[in-house]
């Protein structure tokens, strides 16, 4: 059940997700109103839902299921025999995790983390739907430079930002490829 739910939720991004969040924890959202009636104002610190903390919250919502999907095969790859072997050689549960499962899973874990990083870095629609004032993150800055009707002729600056994003993603991909090579050594 969790797996299939993850499959659905990992793809649940963009405008629909932003809307869902506004409906629950937006200014007049279900949760907000519920808490306000009980004297708790979750927005006493300002309009955080439309700033970086809000984006973190919303992004996490599709990042966690994605992690489940990409990390499950790695966990599945752990063979019961390894644990039995560790046991029979006198290792404790801790030794097993530290010496066997940990090292085997680490590359897959960090590889998945890089995937999540790139996923968040390139996400656009969710942020665009959530934030309509200012452009806190790069994809929104690029949108702004391409479509502004106040400042014209900045398309190439937008491309320069795009180039910066390409550089970042290339770095992430190289690191990912290196980790991938390590993680496939044990997990097949």
């Amino acid at each position, binding site marked *: 059940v969790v797996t299939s739910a993850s499959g659905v939720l990992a793809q649940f991004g963009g405008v629909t997700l932003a809307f869902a969040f506004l409906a629950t924890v*937006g*200014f*007049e959202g279900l949760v907000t109103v519920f808490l306000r009636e009980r004297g708790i104002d979750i927005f006493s610190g300002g*309009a955080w839902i*439309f700033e*970086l903390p809000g*984006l*973190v919250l919303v*992004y*996490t919502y599709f*990042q*966690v*299921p*994605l*992690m*489940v999907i990409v*990390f*499950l095969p790695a*966990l*599945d790859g*752990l*063979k*019961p025999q*390894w*644990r039995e072997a560790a046991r029979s050689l006198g290792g404790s549960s801790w030794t097993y995790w530290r010496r066997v499962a940990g090292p085997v899973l680490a590359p897959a*874990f960090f590889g*998945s*983390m890089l995937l*999540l990083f790139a996923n*968040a*870095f*390139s996400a*656009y629609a969710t942020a665009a739907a959530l934030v*309509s*004032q*200012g*452009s*806190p*993150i*790069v*994809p929104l800055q*690029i949108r*702004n430079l*391409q*479509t502004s*009707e*106040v400042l*014209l*002729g900045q*398309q*190439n*600056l937008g*491309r*320069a*930002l*795009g*180039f*910066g994003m*390409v550089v970042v*993603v290339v770095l992430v991909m190289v690191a990912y490829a290196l980790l991938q090579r390590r993680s496939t050594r044990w997990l097949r």
Partner: protein
Amino acid sequence: VSAATATSAEDFGGLEGLVEAAQEEGKLNVIALPPDWTNYGEIISTFSEKYGIEVVSAQPDANSQDEINAAKQLKGTDRAPDVFDLGPAVAIANADLFAPYKVETWDDIPDELKDPDGRYFSDYGGLMSIGYDAGAVPAPTSLADLLKPEYKGKVALNGDPTQAGAAFAGVVMASLANGGSADDIAPGVEFFAQLKDAGNFLPVDPTPATIASGQTPVGHRLGLHQRRSGRGPGRQAGVEGRRARGGRARLLLHAGDQRRRSAPGRRPAVAGVPLLRRGPEPVAQGLRPAGARGRHGRGRHARRGGVRQAAPGRGRAGQPHRGAGSQGQGVPRGQLAGGDQLSAGGRRALLLPALGIVPFLLYVGVFLLYPTLVVVGGAFVDDTGSPTLANLRTAVSGPYLQAFVRSLQLSAITAVIGAVLGALLAWAVVTGRPDGRCAAW
């Protein structure tokens, strides 16, 4: 007479000739005309009823640059937009794309509000005003009132001022109210900074939906569109451009012209605010200090013209795609095991899977490689096409660098949170499996 090159109704032998030519064409493509903006909804339905011409309305909420892009991309197709509504800056920058045409009352339009060649003219304008939900907040009597704690997290602006002309007008309005001018908007920027520091600024673009749901209790909007009580000065300019596909576009010009002439008599979008007035004053004159109800700037501005020829447009740069892992086409093992020399049959067997990759390579080329090249290429040239590093230098300075830092922060934080929580959840899934096959318990 050719409808595409006609420059006035006389070329058709009067308005009747124009109507006939338009009806022959039968269809009109309009872009970025929101039904709830300056009465466009009614204008469009009246127009198509009166003349029996179908109006195809595309992307009603598009911004000016979207419109120009659409004109360039759809050039020559029957979906190409005929009628535009553009911000003044964009209209003037792209004036070459419009076809000249002068409406019957051309001479009545003040010179500073039209292009001497007839490519565009100012069609409408509005007053900037502050709308508020009387049930949620006390009535503001001046702009400075909005800094009070009663308005915490409640004051919105209609768009991003670096992006939307209407939002920019909101900043100009705040500037005028705080001793600035149309040339010096720093006081306006300062005002919004104070608003944000006070925690009053709400970064949501007010729309009929957010107003109805109470998300945006106080909003700066163009006076024409204020849904609730509006007060406060300022104004916003809008522009219409028209593309000369033929008579129907010309005809709508006249319809709009009629609207302009008869505007005060028509039902205005908001009671009490003149829908359209032809005010010749320059921007600064029309804007008055805040807080005085009724002391409004005059409406103005809009231009017409039409896109006759579009420059060969560079496509808009796509977002860089995330790399899709390529699945290597396996070489049939048996063939390779045979020996050093491949038989003719073996070569054919290799060729076939190779053919299978072609669509994939094409796909990568068109949707990944080409946009990447456009982006990377564009990053190193200036507007005239000569190589420069200035774009990159700007991209790693000031607000752009900040955006990068925030983007990286956001990605890193959500990646770590997501990875940890996701891994725990995945672990729970695996250990919870009934077959007990797994080792991670």
